């Protein structure tokens, strides 16, 4: 099996925001599992690191947290995205789209194009 992808700085925050946008309220474990599944298990994610990301997003006011009860009756902290968070996600998404396009172009570069 190939080595898993290392997460680039700041990408995890964007993934968390996107996950919350799509899935609505979620607990830390749910978010982590969701990201793993969507990435097709290609990302090297220590699930624990998600909590640093969550507290950072909370401090910036992009997500909120409250305690709730999970479907199998465990009390868990549920996170939801805020309006400021959605705005930030739009910006981040646009940035990533531009970056991938540019990266794609640069990497397709051949001798002829110089």
């Amino acid at each position: 099996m190939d080595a898993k992808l290392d997460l680039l700085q700041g990408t995890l925050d964007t993934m968390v925001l996107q996950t919350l946008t799509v899935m609505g309220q979620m607990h830390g474990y749910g978010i982590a599992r969701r990201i793993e599944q969507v990435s097709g298990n290609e990302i090297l994610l220590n699930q624990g690191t998600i909590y640093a990301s969550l507290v950072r997003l909370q401090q910036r006011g992009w997500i909120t947290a409250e305690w709730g009860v999970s479907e199998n009756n465990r009390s868990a902290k549920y996170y939801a995205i805020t309006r400021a968070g959605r705005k930030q996600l739009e910006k981040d998404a646009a940035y990533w789209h531009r970056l991938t396009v540019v990266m794609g172009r640069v990497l397709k570069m051949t001798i002829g194009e110089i």
Partner: protein
Amino acid sequence: MSGTLRRAMQRTMAIFHKGKIDAELDRELKTHIDLAVDENLLAGMSPKEARRKAMIQFGGVQQAKEKHYAVRGFPLVDVLIQDLRFALRTLRRDMGFACIAVLILALGIGANIVVFSVVNTILLRPLPFADSQQLVWIAPPNSGHDLSGSTYSADAYEDYKSMNRSFSGLTAYYAFSLPDNLKMMENGVLKPLTGIPVAGNFFQVLGVQPVMGRSFNDLETRTGGNVIVVSHSFWQRDLGADINIIGKPVTMNNTPFTVIGVLPETFDFGAVFSPGEKVDVFAPQNMDNIRNEGNTLAFIGRLKQGVTLQQARADATELFQKFYSNKKYANSLGVYKGRGYPVYLKDYVSGSLQRSLIVLWCAVGTILLIVCVNLSNLLLARAATRTKEFALRISLGAGRVRLVRQLLTESLVLSSCGALLGLGIAYAATAWLSHQGSIALPLISSMHVDAAALGWTVLLAIAVGLLFGIAPGLKMSSGNLHESLKDSGPGTSEGRKHERLRTVLVVSEVALACVLIVGAGLLLRSFLHVLDIDLGFKPASAAAIKVDYNDGGDMVKRAAILQNIQERVDQIPGVTFAGFSDNLPLERNRGWDGPLVKGKSYPPNYDHGAYIYIISPGFIPAMGMRVHGRDLNWSDGPKSELVMIINKKCASDLWPGEDAVGRVTSFQGKDVRVVGVVDDLHESNVEGVSGWQVYLPMTQGDWGPEGSELVIRSATPVTGLSLPVLKTLQSINAGQAAAPLRPIQSIVDHATSPRRFFAILVGIFATLGLVLASLGIYGVISYTVTRKTQEIGIRMALGATRERVQRDVIVNTLQMALTGLVLGSVVSIAVAREIRSMLYDTQPGDPATFAGTVLLLTAVAAVAGYLPARRASRIEPMRALRND
């Protein structure tokens, strides 16, 4: 931006809510694992396998927590808190050391805060008026304490006010009001008050807004009138802080006055213009009433925007020659030529104190340096015993920077505790000083520990902590690891480097103390010389009280009343002499053109000013003055020949080498015979020289006494006479205000109080410096002996005698002390030159002071060295060698 701010807030909060947040995180992580286990179980794993898999997926729990910390708080702050905790723990373990260090620091820092408060109050802070930098004081250059010579007439005031181009406002106050010149009935007792008449625009020009009511209007400014503006403290104390006081009448001197305004608490007339006195009420001065009184007004102006002091001076020079003393007399034109010289009000109020205050500041700064040196010493000694601990910590991987930081944290904790305690001391000291009415320093009554002083304290705490902490800190962390671990601690002498640093500390301590003691010695000797000055009168066992009487302006009636009072008071047991004067020496004074020799021709416009005292018989012996010729007597009446008493200086200037008694002078257009000559009186200040003085009878010549002070000389302690004297006076006149006798000594003390204040403060600092320095020397020597126990043991085992060991320690101490003394003396000579102008009758190189200082410090060093030396000589060789 607000996001950044919020994050910072939340991060800060996170530090304080650490426990709660941690617990919540633990709960959340536990849920996470549980959910993962649940899912794995559903997938069909065994419970054990499910948990193992969940943990792997999670990664390290501890790492997740650490990351969480890093994001949510400030890791640096965490470390700082850790350092602080550690420092406190270490210090608690060594309580004795910590207490001594904090106490020494508190004394040093406390003294510094007090002096800073004094300097800040008098020198640094602007005067308590709006835009006070624009205010100027106008008086003849170098007019000093001569009140008539530094004031102007009402006509000059009005001309200057209308003609000047420099001021947006010119105002004046009546400078000849005496303290306690009014009386008010309060609870059945007549209570004395002090009132000052001011020009109507006085408060506008100073920029003082009444907190209630208003100040004087145009009509009151022109015609005077029975309206008063009262000081805040008077309103609180005597008017019961009545918030409806405006418009109400207050009866003073049997006349109803309407209160029209209450001044703000920050306005204290006495603090600025007559230090040490309080003024209760202000009335508008009607200029017409004082037009014939000559010089009575002190001038204050507010510079127009953009006008410089130089321009105002040029303007004044040009204008003052056009003013009249009194427009009724054409020949009074030009008397003020060259006598108008504006200076900044601030300079007038505190300029003369600048040097003294800076000296005080330097002295207290020196104390702080000594404190730092002492603590450096203590810390070094302590550090030495901890060498091994630190070496061990370094070898276990602690960074040197971290160790230095740890040590600095310790010293900063010490200095902060010291500063806190010092702040307490300073609060008490400033509160006490500001309530000492007897200190005649301007603005001192408004002194308190303010924001600036708090800022200064923080600055001092940090600077001091770094200063005394840095040397031990660096030394500690830079030591040779190998050596330290190998070194067996106490027993052998340390390397030369160690020794040298400690020698430098002792030498500098002695040098600093030397400078302090020389400075204090010079100031103290000056003060003693000032106390020894022959004032021309004997203040001891004499006292004064202001006496009210009503003679209706009739001289014969006045003589009868005064003679009656004098006879009645004379009968009180203990009273030896009693007599009246309108002015007392060192208080209010008044100058007129002096007497001239009758029949001698003088150049036109010749005049020589003289201080005038209008007195009754008995005043001169009551003041303890010696008279050659005769005293005045009650038969010197309106019908008899005009007589006067003059002082020696006046007599010898008028009739050099001849006896003045019996000669006739031409004085104020009249022939007056000299019947007595008295010693020169220090009429206006203790340290200056006397001018001409003339004593005139109250009962003759219509000289017009301005008020009357009864002076009593007594064989018994004066204070015991207060009650009987007051009773007698009240039995004669029910309108006599109830006030205690004022000892004449208190008037002299008031006049010398600034010098006393500085001499005593510098004296206290010098004593403190001496004690600290001796403690420092003792500490170092004692520590050195302890360190050398083993070495001394070996030397004694090899045959060194006790005397030899003892002598070596003492000689070593004295060598250091002498080096310090030589250095200190050199600096002292320079310092003494700088403070030359503050000395009285004392040379900057005063041999007694220098010799005394050298002897004192040598003796202190000898004692500080002797105690450890004795201990050294008692060392038992065998025990020392066995001892580890």
